[in-house]
């Protein structure tokens, strides 16, 4: 079987994309994307709605063909060797792509048979994966009766039937509540532990940090930044410290005090009256310590201090100078998600 050349650092490439372009009439969904994913790693593709993330996944999983450019997955060319490629990939779409009318077990058995497992093996594999994704009790129920989280887990299980070497996860937790999202994350982490290469698209910095080791930030069909998570976070400018005083009356005085304090590199604070907190942008642990120290010295009693990652919007603002194109969908992960009910 044809394999790709080793990279200088030793890791083989599971995904190699060069100059990928996809036009829909006038719209450039992808406008020259380059991307490398090393075997056994998790690549996060971060971007707002309409950035081209789903188009990229659909090309790499042979559902659509690119206008130009090349892409190789697990050693197979998406255009010249789609059949071989399909045998070694798994796909979990943005909208859980299971057959809702079929029971969980039947869904997995069907995929097993379509992947040329014998009846016996398909049965065994379905049972095994239901067990692993904690769906055994719901095996006989139609997937339409499943909760959002169960459906995603079934979808993940379905994409694991053929023991893929490359797994595409297209916004695996969009629309899930925080608890369910954590469940899905745990499952994805377990899969990565098995050595699968994962390409994950997401709108949430938090999700990328939880799962990915490397990030590619896309916007309007172009890659605008890439690299390790830490590297990128440093580029974007650190975290937000959320300081909540026990007495809400102290919010504004506290904010004014911190602004006056002017710890080096500190941008100005903002007040979140709704949640009774002062938001302080920080760049380092030293700054965090300094802020907490100063507040304590001031004699203010604190109810909580938490740090937050920058939201996608903030990442975009610092990388591109403009806001993410679809702000209502690209809301900060930690704030907006809690209100999403499924």
């Amino acid at each position, binding site marked *: *079987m044809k394999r790709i050349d080793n990279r200088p650092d030793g890791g083989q490439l*599971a995904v190699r994309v060069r100059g990928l372009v996809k036009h*829909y009439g006038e719209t450039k969904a992808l406008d020259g994307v380059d991307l490398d994913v090393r075997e056994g790693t998790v690549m996060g593709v971060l971007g707002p709605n309409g950035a081209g993330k789903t188009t990229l996944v*659909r090309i790499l*999983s*042979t*559902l*659509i*063909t690119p206008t130009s450019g090349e892409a190789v997955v*697990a*050693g197979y060319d998406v255009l010249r*060797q789609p*059949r*071989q490629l*399909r*045998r*070694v*990939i798994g*796909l979990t*779409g*943005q*909208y*859980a*792509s*299971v*057959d*809702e*009318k*079929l029971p969980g077990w*039947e869904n997995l058995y*069907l*995929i097993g*048979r*379509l*992947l*040329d497992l014998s009846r016996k093996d398909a049965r065994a594999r379905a049972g095994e994966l239901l067990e692993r994704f904690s769906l055994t009790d719901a095996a006989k129920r*139609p997937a339409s009766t499943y909760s959002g989280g169960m459906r995603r887990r079934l979808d993940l299980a*379905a994409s694991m039937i053929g*023991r*893929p*070497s*490359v797994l595409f996860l297209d916004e695996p937790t969009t629309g899930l509540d925080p608890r369910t999202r954590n469940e899905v994350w745990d499952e994805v982490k377990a899969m990565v532990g098995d*050595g699968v290469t994962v390409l994950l698209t997401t709108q949430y910095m938090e999700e990328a940090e939880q799962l990915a080791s490397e990030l590619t930030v896309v916007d309007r069909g172009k890659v605008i930044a890439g690299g390790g998570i830490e590297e990128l976070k440093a580029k974007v400018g650190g975290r937000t410290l959320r300081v909540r005083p026990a007495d809400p009356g102290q919010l504004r005085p506290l904010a004014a005090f911190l602004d006056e304090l002017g710890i080096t590199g500190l941008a100005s604070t903002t007040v979140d009256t709704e949640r009774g907190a002062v938001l302080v942008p920080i760049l380092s642990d030293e700054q965090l310590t300094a802020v907490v120290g100063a507040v304590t010295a001031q004699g203010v009693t604190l109810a909580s201090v938490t740090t937050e990652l920058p939201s996608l919007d903030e990442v975009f603002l610092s990388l591109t100078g403009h806001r993410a194109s679809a702000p209502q969908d690209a809301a900060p992960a930690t704030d907006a998600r809690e209100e999403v009910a499924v």
Partner: protein
Amino acid sequence: MSAATVTPDARISPRAHLRHTGALIRRNLLWIRQDPESMFDAVLMPVVFTLLFVYVFGGSIGQALGGGQDGYVQYVIPGMIAMMSMTLSQGVGTGFSQDFNSGVMDRFRSLPIGRGSVLFAKITVELARMLFATTVLMIVAVLVGFDIERWGGLLAAVGLSAAFASSIMWVFLTLGVVLKNAQSVQAMGFLVLFPLQFGSSIFAPTQSMPGWLQAFTDYNPLSTLADAARGLMVGGPVAHDLWITLGWSVAITAVMAPVAIHKFRTKS
């Protein structure tokens, strides 16, 4: 890791094709089990239409035919077989459209299976549904007084209408892939079906129709299918209509099957 141990084969063997199609047929049958209401049309249509036509129009058309209501039963039942082959074929398109909107088609298309398997499975199950509906029709037909004179002819008529139906299903599959949702498929299907069904010899002889309409009904495959079924089941000339119907079936399949598979393959 696993990439190094599997040796994928680009070709899909005929046995694998059968296996894939079989697995997908099972899926479509499970749909029916899960949602028995989806069989309502196959049960009710033959009952309702037979009673409607026999008792509402049967007397007067039958009189014109010279045989009364009983004569009309012998006339209209073979026509109903033709009608159902067309009407039930439509379901194949609406179901297909739903599949695409649910995302499950993306999963199928990302699997190493022949693209035709999904379509063949759909057609097979739809034909089975049609045979079921035809059985219901024949039971109702006998109850309202239809005389099955030639069992062989009946089987041949059912076979012919199944052949024609499977060709029409490729048209509806194409619509199912191309149109945005199930409602559009249904609306479109209705627009195509209605004139074809009533502008034919299914329900009434065409002799009394104006000349321009007769020109249409003569070429309408539903007329030839109905006339061929009539000839086979109750006697009369068969060959001419039989060959024209078969010709239509082959021609429609030859054109529309590649189109449907192509559209399915390249749907973005």
